[in-house]
């Protein structure tokens, strides 16, 4: 008998409750990292070329949601339309000092971690409210003129998300949900000029900051085209997306440090004598040159991950250290997803959670299949030095870590080589969008480091996971993910990963579409297919009849350096 999706949904909160409870206090299995050593900084010359050092001016110029990321529980995405350009410039002058910088957010993060460690609690009682700004191509054109907007070399940015929608696999039939004509924001002719992201630890602080921002904007002739509140899901699903799976476990580490303090943009935890210390910040977190996310900074070399290549060069001079921002409002059909999962699980003689975890590549807690193939493992999921430490194609070796107070070490089962996708299917979401050590259609794993993005998404809507018997009204409520990601090339990063990997059956490896976010639109046929291993050691091909993740808005934006917001963008013309 097929499991009732509602029962599965209800059981999810129980399944993830234990590991999340473990996060309340530091322990041998739930490490809270120590503050980085103040004057250490990345090695210069020891393992390769020196990484960038950012002085005070640069640290104040780069937006803090790009590096290191706000990571706040409550956020508001404000999509704005400009009115009179002079009013917009006046508003930008008001907004400029309120934008959170990389230096400010790094300092907060450093103090927050130190305080967590000192107090031994997850929430040390510190809070902040931060704001980020990004502009669309039309928005920049409205302020600086078409020629200046067209000086951005990124063609996809100039075209905008709506123009690239069907290229990304979005429905081409206007009658279908997800077609750009029906988006709540960002459809043809409905592109926002600006996207403001306000983020706070506390709901009341967020509301105040949003009200102020909106009041100041509207007073100067801007209009709020659409506004979307995002919140991390409530306990015990905090950090999970609406299907019930831990999200955002894997992020690239950004190379570089602050010039004065030596504070690294991404803390390093591998011991210097570990052979991978020049390549990884912590086990499973690769180091990426900052130019993959910040215009003009050194980028990845196409062949050698330890050497920097020249930064992007096709942008106006004032845009240096800015970053492209892709925002997608993605509706999630949670009940539909679990109905499909329950049906397939029944057919294959496995549990719905086990089957769904194969589609994701992780169990609901975030424990990777590669390290725990048979069951969820909350302890593994709670260990940040273990939960992302795995390769796909070869046996994973233990890493040597620098001394970390309170951490007893990674004694979990190591991941075994899975070249043929018998444990974690090649179609599994995490294997599609980040093939890690595997070769891909674009070559060696050095190329994959050029595809990674800094993801800053947050769920929206009321969760239905954990609700035993949702009413039709509850089921129909809008919920999903505000996908947001920063990068230096929309085409080579976001669009590449979406179209070439998630939407393809044969790339980066043969195995089918990404069953979570993959899209297909072959003459209107949206069915997707993928291959999964079966309990008897074989494989089976399955078809996903419809989309469970449906785009409903968004845009391509550019997050300018803060100096430009108060400078060239706000200057009277």
């Amino acid at each position, binding site marked *: 008998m097929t499991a009732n999706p509602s029962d599965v949904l209800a059981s999810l909160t129980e399944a993830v409750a234990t590991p999340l409870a473990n996060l309340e206090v530091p322990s041998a299995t739930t490490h809270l990292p120590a503050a980085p050593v103040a004057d250490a900084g990345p090695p210069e010359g020891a393992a390769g070329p020196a990484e960038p050092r950012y002085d005070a001016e640069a640290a104040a110029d780069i937006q803090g949601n790009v590096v290191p990321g706000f990571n706040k529980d409550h956020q508001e995405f404000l999509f704005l339309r400009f009115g009179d350009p002079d009013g917009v410039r006046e508003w930008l002058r008001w907004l400029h000092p309120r934008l959170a910088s990389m230096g400010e957010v790094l300092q907060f993060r450093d103090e927050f971690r130190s305080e967590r460690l000192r107090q031994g609690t997850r929430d040390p009682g510190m809070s902040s409210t931060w704001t980020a700004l990004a502009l669309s191509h039309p928005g920049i054109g409205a302020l600086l003129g078409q020629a200046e907007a067209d000086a951005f*070399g990124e*063609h*996809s940015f100039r*075209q905008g998300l709506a*123009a*690239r*929608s*069907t*290229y*990304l*696999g979005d429905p*081409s039939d206007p009658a279908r949900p997800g077609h750009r004509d029906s988006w709540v924001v960002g459809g043809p002719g409905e592109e926002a000029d600006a996207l403001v992201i306000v983020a706070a630890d506390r709901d009341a602080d967020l509301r105040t900051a949003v009200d102020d921002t909106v009041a100041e904007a509207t007073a100067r002739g801007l209009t709020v085209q659409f506004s979307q509140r995002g919140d991390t899901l409530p306990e015990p699903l905090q950090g999970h997306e609406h299907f019930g799976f831990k999200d955002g476990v894997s992020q690239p580490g950004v190379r570089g440090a602050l010039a004065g303090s030596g504070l690294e943009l991404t803390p390093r935890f591998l011991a210097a004598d570990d052979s*991978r210390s020049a*390549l990884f910040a912590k086990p499973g977190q690769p180091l990426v040159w900052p130019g993959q996310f910040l215009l003009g900074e050194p980028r990845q*070399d*196409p*062949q*050698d*991950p*330890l*050497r920097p290549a020249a930064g*992007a*060069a*096709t942008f106006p001079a004032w845009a240096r250290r800015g970053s492209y921002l892709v925002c997608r409002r993605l509706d999630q059909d949670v009940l539909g997803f679990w109905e499909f999962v329950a049906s397939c699980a029944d057919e294959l003689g496995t549990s719905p959670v086990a089957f769904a975890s194969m589609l994701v590549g992780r169990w609901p807690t975030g424990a990777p299949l590669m390290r725990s193939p048979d069951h969820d493992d909350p302890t593994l999921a709670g260990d940040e030095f273990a939960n992302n430490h795995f*390769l796909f*194609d*070869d*046996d994973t*070796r233990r890493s040597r870590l620098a001394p970390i107070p309170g951490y007893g070490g990674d004694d979990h089962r190591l991941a075994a*080589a899975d*070249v*043929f996708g018998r444990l974690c299917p090649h179609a599994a979401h995490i294997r599609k969008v980040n093939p890690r*050590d*595997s*070769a*891909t*259609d*674009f*070559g*060696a*794993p*050095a*190329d994959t480091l050029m595809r990674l993005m800094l993801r800053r998404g947050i769920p929206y809507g009321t969760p239905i996971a954990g609700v035993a018997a949702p009413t039709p009204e509850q089921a129909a409520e809008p919920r999903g993910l505000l996908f947001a990601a920063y990068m230096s090339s929309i*085409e*080579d990063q976001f669009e590449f990963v979406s*179209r*070439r990997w998630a*939407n*393809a*059956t*044969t*790339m*980066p*490896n*043969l195995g089918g579409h990404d069953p979570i976010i993959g899209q*297909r*639109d*072959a*003459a*209107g046929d949206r069915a997707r297919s993928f291959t999964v291993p079966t309990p008897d050691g074989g494989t089976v091909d399955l078809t996903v009849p419809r989309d469970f993740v449906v785009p409903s808005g968004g845009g391509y934006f550019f997050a300018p350096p803060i100096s430009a917001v108060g400078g060239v963008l706000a200057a009277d013309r």
Partner: protein
Amino acid sequence: MATITFDTPAHLRDAPAGSPFYAAWHREIARLVNDRVPLSRPGRSVDPSVVDLEVDEERLKTWTGFSRPLLMEHRDDRPAAFAASEDRSVQIEYLEWHVTRTDGAITKITFTTETPEYYAVLAATEPQVLLDLYRRLVSPQVQLADLVGAGGTYKPRNKWNTTLGIVHYIMPINSMKDMLGVSEEIQNAADARDNFEPLPYQRMTGADARLSFDNWVMTRRGLSVAPWNPPGLYIVDWDDTGWTKPDGTPVDDYWTVARGAEGMVLRLEYEVPATEDFVVGDIAIGGRPITTGGEVAEHIVLSARTVAGRESP
């Protein structure tokens, strides 16, 4: 399981049954594959026509038809990469194409993955078949003297395979020899424990890295690897999602498999039927008009297959 006889790409039967061509083709491939070559330890690459291999796994290695080196060279100027790609000497990912234009607009693009070795063996064993094939693929005007020089030597860079059309690869390192040779390379990987340790990998193409790294991970599992039979370079997929007609609606299926079979396509043509009132050059990919063959090649998936298993005692 026994040792195998190499078949023709996509099981082509251009020559009549019983023709000496087929044995000659087997000998040509066997000449290009080494009996046993150590790769990333402990496994090795073997010639399945010599070594009896118990096949446990089959792996499809895929890559993109457009040149990765050009994209890396013109990292911030994709149109420059596409413009440069019209020269077949830089179509380096085992996919070459010929663009037909009328009044400057692209009307047809013909893609091939056929190797010069195949046509050289045909020339040596079945010259009339060679001529018939050229006439069918390119032009009835082709003469045998255009294809074969004094002494019967095949001329791969003849005008019907260069300026006037396309039949098989001419780019110097697109060949069966190169595909099979790269598959036996060990660059930096002899003692590697994972795919990060051989970095930096020197070859810039997506194809070469794919051919090598995928073999290395299998030999590190203790497996022996060998070319799938029939060995070949195949178009395995293409993606026209988000391609639009001049009126903005999605394109219909304008692809024609001219040689090969599903999953083993050797010659692929893209041309809008005459019943439509537009041509290939009027189609837009993600909102951008097609101005070069490379913009289409970017959405074609190439492949080669490898088998892996244990050598029989």
